[in-house]
């Protein structure tokens, strides 16, 4: 039995750009920004990095294919640079590449960096592309991401016999809470407080999701430098260590899309990946042990279902927990303390690493009082790429000592 990744790798330094409409910055400029911050935080030189993984999903407008764009932008000295795309889990996949590289002993220090320059696509929302292959162009629906995720809501309501009004009330609270948190975050894309009435009354994008149920489409980059605990202790003898406790990916088997067992109001990959991640991290009861989370709130309904899929809210119980403030910044498990995809924004390839950036800084107690999570022990990040019936889920758990 493989023993997993727990405690074998630590984060040496991180950087994250301000997310948003970065009209004046290219993808390469953003890479430089997050990389420079991460390098300063790590206190190392470029020559110390032995391998790099780049997370990018759709932005071939700036980045193109392969690892050359990032290697060129950062002038990395002829080291391995691999481009990874696994939908919205691309950032976490890059982090997994770097972590596995270090854990295997293949390299001492590795870089994970993600970037996306969505604002040059010209689209509101994500650009149309044959993301599921050419055959789906011929037989798949004329769908967008919000419409595919919106179906979670109708199936969830039918499954639990909860009214659509109650679902809408709960998802409204989700977006409201993310805006409350995002206001306090200088790096967030959307920094405006909005009322529940504004959210509830926003124009419909895909029933029942309104405009405020959808996350920001942003430019941005985030970077992490990882190494072994031994090297970290040598380089930063006085600093606490933020350790990788678990790192799991689960990919749809095709069962959700074509077989009859999936209930439509949950995400099977999240359930599988989180179960494995808790085991890897040694967590028995996530509801009492997880201190904070950054989850993939591409749409508010995704966050609602994720609360159950992570085995934290009981099935059918997420609306109650959400409306009781369980996931608010001052609740028992603050969810999206940095504003989430909703307000921090969602430059796809960077998002997973941005979530890790938040957990890392919270665990190190670096944030100001008004947005600090009290005494965090375990921080969890979650990405969900693709669509609910066909997707990639990543779960990472971090601890500090």
């Amino acid at each position, binding site marked *: 039995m493989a023993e997993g990744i727990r405690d074998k790798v630590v984060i040496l330094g991180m950087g994250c750009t301000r997310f948003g409409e970065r009209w004046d910055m290219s993808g390469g400029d953003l890479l430089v920004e997050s990389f420079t911050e991460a390098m300063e935080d790590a206190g190392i030189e470029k020559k110390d990095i032995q391998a790099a993984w780049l997370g990018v999903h759709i932005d071939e407008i700036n980045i193109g294919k392969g690892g050359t764009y990032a290697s060129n932008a950062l002038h990395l000295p002829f080291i391995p640079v691999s481009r990874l795309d696994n939908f919205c889990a691309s950032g976490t996949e890059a982090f997994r590449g770097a972590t596995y590289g270090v854990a295997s002993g293949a390299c001492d220090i590795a870089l994970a960096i993600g970037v996306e320059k969505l604002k040059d696509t010209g689209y509101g929302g994500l*650009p149309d592309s044959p993301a599921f292959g*050419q055959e789906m162009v011929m037989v798949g*629906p*004329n769908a*967008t991401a919000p*419409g595919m995720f919106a*179906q979670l809501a109708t199936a969830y309501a039918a499954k639990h016999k909860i009214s659509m009004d109650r679902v809408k009330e709960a998802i409204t609270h989700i977006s409201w809470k993310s805006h409350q948190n995002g206001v306090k975050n200088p790096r967030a894309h959307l920094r405006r407080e909005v009322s529940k009435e504004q959210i509830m009354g926003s124009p419909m994008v*895909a029933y029942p999701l309104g405009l405020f149920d959808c996350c920001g489409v942003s430019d941005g980059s985030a970077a992490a430098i990882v190494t072994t605990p031994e090297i970290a202790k040598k380089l930063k003898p006085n600093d606490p260590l933020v350790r990788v406790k678990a790192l799991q990916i689960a990919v749809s088997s095709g069962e959700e899309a074509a077989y*009859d067992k999936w209930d439509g109001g949950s995400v099977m990959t999240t359930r599988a990946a989180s179960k494995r991640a808790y085991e890897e991290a040694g967590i028995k009861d996530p509801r009492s042990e997880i201190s904070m989370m950054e989850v993939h709130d591409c749409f508010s309904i995704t966050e609602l279902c994720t609360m159950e899929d992570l085995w934290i809210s009981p099935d059918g119980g997420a609306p109650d927990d959400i409306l009781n403030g369980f996931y608010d910044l001052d609740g028992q498990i603050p969810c999206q303390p940095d504003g989430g995809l909703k307000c921090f924004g969602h430059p796809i390839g960077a998002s997973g690493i941005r979530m890790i950036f938040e957990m890392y800084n919270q665990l190190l107690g670096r944030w100001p009082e008004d947005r600090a999570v009290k005494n965090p022990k375990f921080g969890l990040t979650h990405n969900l790429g693709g669509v609910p*019936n066909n997707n990639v889920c990543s779960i990472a758990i971090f601890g500090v000592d």
Partner: protein
Amino acid sequence: MVGITSFGGYVPRYRLNRMIIFGSMGWLNPVIISNARGEKAVANFDEDAITMAVAAGMDCLRGVDRSTIDAVYYASTTAPYRERQNANIVAGALGAREEIRTADFAASLKSGTTALLSALEFAAANQGAKAVVCAADCRLAKMASTQEMVFGDGGGAAMVGDEDVIAEYKGSYSVSYDFVDHLRGANTKYDRMWEERWIRDLGYANFIPQVVNGLCEKYGLSPADFDKVVYPCYYGGARKKINGIFGEGEGKVQDDLQATVGDTGSGHPLLMMAGALETAKPGDKILLVSFGSGCDALWFEVTDAISKKQDGRGISRWLARRADLDNYQKYLVWRGMAPPDTGLRGEVDKETRWSLVWRERKGILGMWGGKCKACGTQQYPARRMCVNPDCGAVDQMEPVYLAEKGGTIFSYTGDMLAASLNPPAVYGTVSFEGGGRTVLDFTDCTVEDLAVGNPVDFSFRIKFYDPKRDITNYFWKARPVLGEVS
């Protein structure tokens, strides 16, 4: 005995009141008021002369084992392809075998009856053979034209053979003339017509009596011998005159559907014929006449088997299912007569990879899925490996024609972000009857019409049109079953 063994019709859901056309365009051509009575059927944005022919064919083939079909004939003057046989698309959608005869009949509004004659002769020449004829048109007329008032969209279908005949084919008579009343060149989008009085008096009121009398002389009949008469002609005066030759008889002459549908071109004789067969009695003599570049006249005699097919197929249920198209601009956009801005999503260049389309043709055209021989799991699309996580058998798929199976709604949404000419784009996950599920576009409904668990059936529709390469692609959409929503 060779004859019609089943029939079907199709009228699209949307109806445009002709006064809306007049209200929008009467300023330009006030005389169109003279045709502004009633409403006309308008194809949805995802319908065309192929999809409506398939819809009529699906109506006609309810309960028919598709593997028994030996020929599929398609008739239209508005088929989307000049090269790429349109009948093969129709045949694929209807779930027919590939070892069959197919043909397109075109370029004349009598092509529907000519296709029917050819099918009847095919059945007569090949014992036990069954042929399906589908005819539909979706003709474009210029804004403020008479044709814009008169034309409607729809289609009809008939199956012929020598078993379970419901209307025996007794004989026919044809006349063919290069009489150019309506005209469209190979590169012309809109219909053009000559003077209406000439069309009425030297066309309809001349050729139709001529072909009827020709048939009667040939078989020793009198026009008054017929119990039901089907012929297209939207000129009230000419119609009155022609009706006179058939003598008295309540409901003898079939309604030409001008007040409810409009003239559906090649499909019209078969559409009207479906209406006649819905109410026909054993022993009825039916006369079916077409008009366009001449006329075909066909004589049928209804058999005792007719009652078995009077089960809701035909045109009545389509006429009853209707929704107002209360907006002339929407009609223009749907017919491609005015270019709307659908944003970047509407400009995406979607290429058609023909080798892929060929490989997946059954899954695309007929929505054929698979049923695993090892575990019995029905699934779509059919892949080499069974989707059942407890099975996973390889190369055990048996083809299943899913297009005729219904399903239920598993989840759904209405999407305002997706580029659509009828937003919101409604789609959702559908559970097939018999197992398996897939995400499909929905059509002919609004999101308010839907609920999880509601039944749907499937309708062959335009999937997307590639304007750069002039390619129309088709696939199936889910639609609330008739009766669930008007």
